[in-house]
C-alpha cells in the first residue's frame, strides 16, 4: 500500500525501498510495543497464584507443599484452611463443587488429620510463600485415597474506606475476596483406578447433539482422565468433537454437547465415546494412576 502511494508520487526506486522498509520496521516496533503493553496490563491485574492445582501426599513421605505467589503491587492477606467438596452432578449433567466445612461423613475425607503451615500470612508485592502440608492419618486407615480441599483465601492487605463526597451521603465498600479451592489427595497402599459406564444417551437438541454419560467409580481412588466424544455420520465422517477433563470420585453424570455442523453429512449419526486416564497435561505423569479405558458407540436418537 505504502509502495503504491510512493509510485504515484514519482519517488525514485531506491528511496521507495528505503521508505517501505522503514514502514515495515516501525510497523514491527508498534506491534511489539502493543504486545508489551498488553502483557504489562495483564500482569498488573494479576491476582494471587496458587500452584500446583492438585497436591499429592503419599503414605511414605506424608508431606506435601504448595506455592502461593503475589505478583501484584499491593500486599495480599492470605489464609489457608481445609474444606471438603467433590465434583457432583445434577440430573442435567451440570458439574459443581460445593464446599462443606463441618459434619463431613464421607469415609474418604482427610479433613482433621492434614495440617498446613503457615495458615495465615501477608504476602508482600512480588513475594511468594511455600505452604507445607503434614498428614497424620489414623493408624488403622485402610488402603485407598483420601481427599480434602485446600482453600487459599486472598484479599487486599490494605483497605481504605471511601469518604462521602456529599454531606449526609452514604458510601459503600465491598471487599472482593477470592478463594481458590484445590484438591489434596492422600494416597495409601495399592491403588486401582477403575470406571464403569452406566446409562448413556445421545439425543438431538436443536442444532446440537446432547450426550449424557453416567459413570461409576469402582476403584479405590479417584478416576482422573479425559472424556472425548466424536459425532460421526453414516459415512464415518466426523461432524464435531469435544474433549473434557474428567474426575470421578463416586458417581458422575456428565453432559457433553456436540454441535451439528452444516455440511453434507449422511444420517444416521452416532457418537463415539472414549474415556482414558491418558492425555492429562496438568498432572505430572508420576502422579497419574493408570486406569481402564472405555470406548462405546451410541446411536443418536
Amino acid at each position, binding site marked *: 500500500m505504502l509502495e503504491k502511494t510512493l509510485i504515484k508520487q514519482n519517488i525514485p526506486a531506491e528511496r521507495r525501498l*528505503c521508505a517501505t*522498509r*522503514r514502514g515495515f520496521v516501525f510497523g*514491527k*516496533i508498534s506491534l*511489539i*510495543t502493543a504486545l*508489551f503493553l498488553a*502483557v*504489562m496490563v495483564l*500482569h498488573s*491485574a*494479576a*491476582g*494471587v*497464584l*496458587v*500452584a*500446583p*492445582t*492438585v497436591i499429592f501426599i503419599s503414605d511414605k513421605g506424608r508431606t506435601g507443599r504448595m*506455592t502461593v*505467589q503475589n*505478583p501484584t503491587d499491593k500486599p495480599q492477606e492470605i489464609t489457608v484452611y481445609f474444606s471438603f*467438596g467433590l*465434583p457432583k452432578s*445434577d440430573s442435567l449433567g*451440570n458439574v*459443581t*463443587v*460445593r*464446599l462443606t466445612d463441618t459434619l463431613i461423613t464421607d469415609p474418604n475425607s482427610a479433613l482433621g488429620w492434614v495440617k498446613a503451615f503457615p495458615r495465615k500470612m501477608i504476602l508482600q508485592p*512480588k513475594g511468594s510463600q511455600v505452604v507445607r502440608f503434614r498428614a497424620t492419618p489414623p493408624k488403622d486407615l485402610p488402603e485407598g485415597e483420601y481427599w480434602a480441599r485446600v482453600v487459599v483465601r486472598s484479599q487486599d492487605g490494605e483497605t481504605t474506606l471511601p*469518604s*462521602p*463526597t*456529599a*454531606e*449526609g*451521603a*452514604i*458510601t*459503600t*465498600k*465491598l*471487599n*472482593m*475476596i*477470592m*478463594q*481458590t*479451592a*484445590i*484438591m489434596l489427595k492422600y494416597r495409601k497402599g495399592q491403588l486401582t483406578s477403575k470406571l464403569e459406564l452406566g446409562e448413556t444417551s445421545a439425543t438431538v437438541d436443536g442444532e446440537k447433539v446432547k450426550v449424557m454419560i453416567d459413570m461409576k467409580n469402582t476403584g479405590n481412588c479417584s478416576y482422573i482422565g479425559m472424556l472425548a466424544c466424536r459425532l460421526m455420520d453414516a459415512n464415518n465422517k466426523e461432524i464435531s468433537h469435544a*474433549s473434557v*477433563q*474428567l*474426575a470421578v470420585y463416586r458417581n458422575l453424570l456428565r453432559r457433553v454437547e456436540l454441535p451439528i455442523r452444516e455440511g453434507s453429512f449422511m444420517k444416521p449419526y452416532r457418537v463415539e465415546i472414549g474415556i482414558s486416564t491418558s492425555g492429562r*497435561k*496438568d498432572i505430572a505423569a508420576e502422579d497419574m494412576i493408570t486406569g481402564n479405558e472405555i470406548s462405546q458407540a451410541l446411536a443418536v436418537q
Partner: protein
Amino acid sequence: MRNSISKSLARFVSIVTIVTFAAVLKPSTVSAQDVANGSATATVQAVLVVTSTAALAFGNVFQGVSTSVANAAAGAGVFTVTGQASSVIAMYMQLPDYMSTATGDDRMVISFSATDASVDSTANTTPTTFGTGWQNTNPHNINAATELGNAGAALFLGGKVLPTVDQAAGAYTADIILTVAYTGT
C-alpha cells in the same frame, strides 16, 4: 545506510523487548524444580489465578433511595479466573445480606437478584461489552461449569443497596467471596 540503521534499530528494539518481557514475566511463573546431581529436571506446575479487577461500586447513595448497579454497568464487580486452558471450573459465591459501618452501629440491606451475575467465557473483562457465556444468571447458584479458554473467564456482578430513611451517613462495608475449583481434578 538508512536500511542498515533501520535494521540495527529493529534488532535492538526486539532484543530489549524480549529481555524486558522475560524480566516482567518472570515473577508470574510459579514452578517447582527438582535438581539432581549431573542433570536437572524441572516440573512446571499448572496454576490457578483468581483476581478481582473491580469492586462492585454503588457510589454515593442517599437515605431512602435504593440504588442498583446492573451486571453490565461500568460499576459492576469483576472477578477474573485464569488457569489451565480447556479445563472446567466451578464457581460459588457467598454474598452478604447487609453492609455495616466500621463500628457496627448501623447496617444497610444489600440484595442480589436471580439475574445479577454474568459469566463471560471469552477474554473480555469489561462488563459493558459482554462477549459470550451465561448472561443474567443467578449469583447464588452459578451452576454452569465454565470451560477456561486460553484467556480464562470473567464474572460480572451487579446488586442493589436499600438504605432506610433514617440510615446513618458514613461508610458501609461487606465481603463478597468467590470460590473457584477445578471440576476435573
